[in-house]
């Protein structure tokens, strides 16, 4: 397709809009998939959506047509210069269907309307995604995808994979199902005690698990929500040197 010189030519000269829209779309899509920084991904997302909007607006372009607002001669209220309350009533009866010859004078309004909607949907998505980014940063201290994946993997293996092979080991003592983030204070002391159990400790918890299994697991899993602030604690020492390097 591309080797065909005429199409290439046609694309570049006559349909530059369509060509550029494809390029922008690809840039955005590539950024969404391959960029490492989550904010960059979102900027890519916006570029992607804008490219689609450009495509729609290009559909609506009509040679020799003006913007989709009635010119004074077609205005249902007549010229706006003479608009006052009495005359509005009079002139409003004069509104009539545009004759077919006048229709090509105006651009098709429909793509524009659709794109107004798309723009607003785009900004709503952007805002929501940014708030998710902030939440991720709150929990994991990073918005870089590779670091985030690493931390998530560590967390997941602690939660399920780890207890898969070994006995469920004791971690932070249960905070009785507290809501997200409220158990922030007082975490430091518990963390030093229980986050990295020594082998001896693990042994101890193992023997205890045997005696009353489910009870222990209840304690373990009620941390499901509470143990997430932990990475925040871990973040600061981990983050500082990295910043210095970069």
């Amino acid at each position: 397709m591309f080797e065909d010189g005429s199409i290439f030519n046609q694309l570049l000269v006559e349909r530059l809009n369509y060509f550029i829209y494809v390029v922008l779309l690809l840039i955005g899509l590539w950024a969404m998939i391959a960029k490492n920084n989550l904010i960059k991904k979102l900027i890519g997302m916006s570029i992607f959506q804008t490219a689609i909007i450009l495509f729609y607006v290009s559909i609506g372009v009509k040679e020799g047509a003006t913007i989709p607002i009635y010119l004074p001669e077609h205005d249902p209220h007549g010229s706006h210069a003479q608009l006052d309350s009495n005359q509005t009533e009079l002139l409003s009866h004069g509104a009539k269907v545009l004759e077919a010859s006048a229709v090509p004078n105006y651009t098709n309004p429909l793509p524009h309307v659709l794109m107004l909607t798309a723009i607003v949907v785009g900004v709503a998505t952007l805002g929501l995604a940014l708030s998710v980014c902030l939440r991720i940063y709150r929990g994991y201290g990073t918005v870089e995808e590779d670091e985030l994946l690493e931390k998530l993997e560590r967390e997941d293996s602690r939660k399920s994979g780890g207890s898969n092979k070994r006995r469920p080991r004791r971690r932070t003592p249960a905070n009785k199902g507290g809501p997200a983030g409220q158990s922030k204070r007082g975490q430091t002391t518990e963390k030093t005690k229980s986050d990295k159990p020594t082998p001896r400790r693990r042994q101890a918890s193992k023997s205890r698990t045997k005696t009353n299994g489910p009870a222990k697991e209840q304690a373990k899993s009620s941390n499901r929500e509470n143990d997430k602030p932990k990475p925040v604690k871990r973040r600061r020492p981990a983050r500082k040197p990295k910043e210095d390097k970069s």
Partner: protein
Amino acid sequence: MGLELFNTLILCLLVVVAVLSLWVRDLVVSAVVFAIYSFLMCLLWAEMGAVDVAFTEATVGAGVSTVVLIATVFNLKRKAKD
């Protein structure tokens, strides 16, 4: 002809600016460049006769999106790794 040249110029600039906003490492700069992108887009649409879309893009894309992006970046790390 003049309009066509204008059109072509903006289209080329758009690609440059889009790449630039993804290439820059500083996220605030990236957001501002993205605002430029939105604004160029808005000019292009105004030229193509889509005045309402251009107006919306100017307020939403170049305005609120950028403010919101920068507001978020201020709560995050400003430097991106790529």
